[in-house]
C-alpha cells in the first residue's frame, strides 16, 4: 500500500512499491492529463512535479514519491488559469496536444525558479520534452509571454 499526495489530495493505492508513478496516476487514479510517451524518460510527456521539481513519472517509482507533494497538470491551477495555460491559448500552441501537459509542467517548473528566462534558458529547460507536431516556436513564445505576465 502506497500513500500518495497528489494535487493536495491523499490517495492510498495498493500497488507494488516499484510500480512507475505514471501508471498509478494515469491508470489507477485516472488523472489522465499526464501522458505516457516513451517509458524511458526520453520524451517528457509524463512530466509532473515532485516537491516542485519536474520529474519523469515513468521513471519514478511509487516508493520514491511516497510522502512527497505531487502536482500534475490537473493541479497546476484549480481554474486552468495559470499564466502559462493562458499563454498557451493566446499563442495557440497545441496541435495534437498529447505532449502539452508535460510541456506545461516543464515550463511551470522553469518559471518557478527563473521568472525571467532567456531564450537559452528556455531551450535548456525544454529540450527534454518532445513535440512531434513541432510546436516548439510557439512553446517558446508562450513561455516568454507568460514570463512577462508573471513579472508585470
Amino acid at each position, binding site marked *: 500500500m502506497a500513500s500518495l499526495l497528489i494535487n493536495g489530495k491523499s490517495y492510498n493505492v495498493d*500497488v*507494488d512499491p516499484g*510500480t*512507475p508513478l505514471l*501508471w498509478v496516476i494515469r*491508470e*489507477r487514479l*485516472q*488523472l*489522465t*492529463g*499526464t*501522458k*505516457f*510517451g*516513451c*517509458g*524511458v524518460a*526520453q*520524451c517528457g*510527456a509524463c512530466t509532473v512535479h515532485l516537491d516542485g521539481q519536474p520529474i519523469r513519472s515513468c521513471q519514478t517509482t511509487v516508493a520514491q514519491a511516497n510522502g512527497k507533494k505531487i502536482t*500534475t*497538470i*490537473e493541479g*497546476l*491551477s484549480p481554474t*486552468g488559469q495559470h499564466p502559462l*495555460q493562458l499563454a*498557451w*491559448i493566446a499563442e*495557440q*500552441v*497545441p*496541435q*495534437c*496536444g*498529447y*505532449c*502539452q*501537459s508535460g510541456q*506545461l509542467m516543464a515550463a511551470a517548473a522553469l518559471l518557478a525558479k527563473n521568472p525571467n528566462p532567456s531564450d537559452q534558458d*528556455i*531551450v*535548456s529547460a*525544454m*529540450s*527534454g*520534452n*518532445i*513535440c*512531434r*507536431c*513541432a*510546436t*516548439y*516556436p*510557439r*512553446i*517558446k513564445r508562450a513561455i516568454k509571454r507568460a514570463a512577462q505576465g508573471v513579472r508585470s
Partner: protein
Amino acid sequence: MSTRLTRRAFLASATAAGAALTIRFPLVAPGDAAAAAAYDPNAALTITPDGIVTVHITKAEMGQGVGTALAQIVAEELEVDWKDVRVDYPANDPKFGLMLTGGSWSVNWTFDTLSRAGAAARLALIDAAAKTWNANPADCVAARGVVRHLPTGRALRYGEIVARVPITKTFSEDELKQIVLKKPADYRVVGQWIPRLDIPEKTNGKAKFGIDTFLPNMVYAKVAYPPTREGAKFTAVDDSAAKRVKGYVATVQLPQQQLVAVVASSYEAAVKARDALKITWDAGPNASVSTDSIFAKFNSAKDDPGVTSWHEQGDVKGAMGGAARRHEATYTTDYVAHMQMEPMNCVVRFADGAYDIYTGSQFQTFAVGTLAATLGVDASKIRINQQYLGGGFGRRLEPDIMVETALIAREVKRPVKLIRSREEDLRRDFYRSATLQQVKAGLDRDGKIVAWEKTVVASHPGRRWGPDFVDKKGLDQFALNGADHVYDIPNQVVRAIPVETGISVGYVRAVAPNYTFFAVETFMDELAKLAGVDPLQYRLSMLGSAPRLANVLKLAADKAGWGSSLPANTGRGIACVSAQEKKTPTWTASVVQAQVDPSTGKVKIDKIVCAVDCGIVVNPDGARSQIEGSILFGISNALKERGTVANGALVQSNFHDYQVLRMDEVPEVEVHLVPSTEYPTGLGEPGTTTVAPALSNAIFAATGARVRQVPLLPDRVLAALRARA
C-alpha cells in the same frame, strides 16, 4: 495479421484511389417530429432549440485544427454566430460516407460540400420562418442565427424555429449544386483568425485521447510480438510462469491470426505476465533481412527492363540520344517511423455480438471493413468511438491495433485495454519506405532539359491494403506522387518498381513527395549547375505552365534574400513542389539557409523561409501552425531520422536511438501565405516535402559537396566533402 478487404472497404478505396472524391451528405426530411427536439438538416450539422449549432466533424482531429476549420466553413454559409457553434467527432455511420483523414485532403474535399450543407440549412430555416409568417422567403434574410422578414421586421431565432416551427424544405443533389454560395469577398468567418476550439482542453489535461478511455470491469492486455516485422510464426507457447503473476487473467492464443497475448488486471501485471511467457518462434523467411540486403535488392531491381512506366510523355529515348549533354544521379532515402507521441492503443468492449471500439482513427471506413472481415461480423456490429489522436501522421490510418484488441476482447469477454510500449510501437510501425531513385536527363546546347527519365524503387503500401488500393499495373500512386512534377520538359518518363522487402511500409506524413521531390529538386539543382544557370532562374524557365508555383518560388527567394552574400561554409538552397498531388497541389517553395562544419560534416539550419499558395485560407493561424509544423517535421526527417534494419526488424527502439527534432535544433521559420480566392487545397504536408532538397541544395551551395542520401547525416556530408576534394 490479415487485413483482407471487404466490399465495404472497396467502396472506400475506390474513392481513396482518387477516382471521385465526393463526400455525400444525404439530406433527410426531418418531418414534424424532428422540430420539437433538434434539426438535423443533413449529416453535417445539428441545430438544437437553444440555438446551438453542432457541426459533426468526420475528420480525425490530430492537431490540424480540422474541427475548427470545417465548422468555420459551415458557419459561413449558415449565417450563425460563431459563439453558438460547437463541434463533435461522431462514431462511424454509413451516413457520413467515406471516413478518411489524410493526404492534406480535409478542407480540399469538404469545402464545397460543407458550404452547401450550411447554405441548405439556412435556406430551410428561412423557408420555415417565412411559412409561419405567410411571407415570401425572398423577403427574408438570415444573419447571426436570426431569420428576419424585411418588410415587417418580424424575426425568429434559429433555436426558436427548431423548437416551434415545422421545417420541411429538403434538397435534392441537383438543388444542392444549384445553391449560389457566397463570394470570398463576402466571407465573415472563413479567413478569420478564430481560436481553435480544441486548444483550451489541451492545456489543462481534460482533452480525451484514446489512451484515456476507461470502461467498467476493464482488463489490460499485452501482446507478445514476433521477432521479425513480417513472416514469423509462433510454434509453442508456455504460459505456466505467466499464470503465477499476481493479477493474471488469461492467455490468448490465436494461431490463425498469429496473435499471442496475456490479459491481466493492471497494465504492470500484464507486462509482467507477458514477459513471463516462453514462446518458441519460427522467425520465418525474413530473419536475415537487413538495410544492406534491402538496398542491394533495390539496386538490382532498378535496371529491370520489363518495367512499365507510371507517367510518360514525348519520346524520351530519341531526345536522350540527341542531347548535347547527359547527366545522371542516384538518390536514396532511409526508413522513417511515425513516432506519434501517443503510442498505439485501443479499448474494446465486446457484448451482444457487437464491438464498441475506443480509439483515434484516421480511416474508420477501412477499419470497419477490416474488422468486420477479420471478426466475421456484419459492419453494423463495429462501432468506432472516435477520440482525439495523439498524433496521426498516417499511423492511425492502419487498423492493426483495433484488430488485435477486438480479437482479445472477444476471447476474454471483458472490456480490454491494449497499450503498446514505445518499443512495440516503433517495432510494429508501418514505415515510410526506404527508396532508391535514379534520374537521368539530357540537355541541349543551351542547357535546356530535353529528356528526363526517373526510376523510383520503393515498397508500395497499397499492395498490403489490397488490390483496390493499387492501379491496374499494381502501382500505388501514393508511393509515386511527385515524380510527375510540373516542369515543362517535353519528353519524360517515370519508371516505377515496387519491391517487397519483409519490412512493412505505410503512409507517413507527406508520403511519397518526401522522396520523389527530394530527387526531382536536388537533381534540378545539379542540372542548373551543369547548365551554368542560377537554380532559381533555371526552375523559373520551366514553370510557364505553373504560374502559381513560379510566384511562390519568387516570393520565397525574395524574402530569403536570394543571391545576397553569406559567410564561408554557409549556403542557401531552394526547392519548390506541387504537393501533395499534381491535380490538387498546394504550391509551396522553401529556401533553407544552413551552415556546414567542414571538419565534422555537421549541418546547422539557420533559417527556413516558406511561401505557400493554397487558395482560400480558412483559418490563417491554423494554416501557419500547420506549415510551421510541417516544415519542422521535414527538418527532423531530413537531418536526423534514419530507420535501419537488421534480422528482419527495425534496429531502433525508442527516442534515444530514433531521434526526432527537439527545441534546441529549431531554426527560425518564416511563413508567407499568398492571398488567394482560388478553391482551397491542403496544408498539413506540402511544406515537409521541400525541406530535404532545399537543405541538400544549401549544403551544396555552402561547400560544393552534393549529398544524395536522406537523412543528410554528418558522415554522409563528410563523405560528400571528401568526394568533392
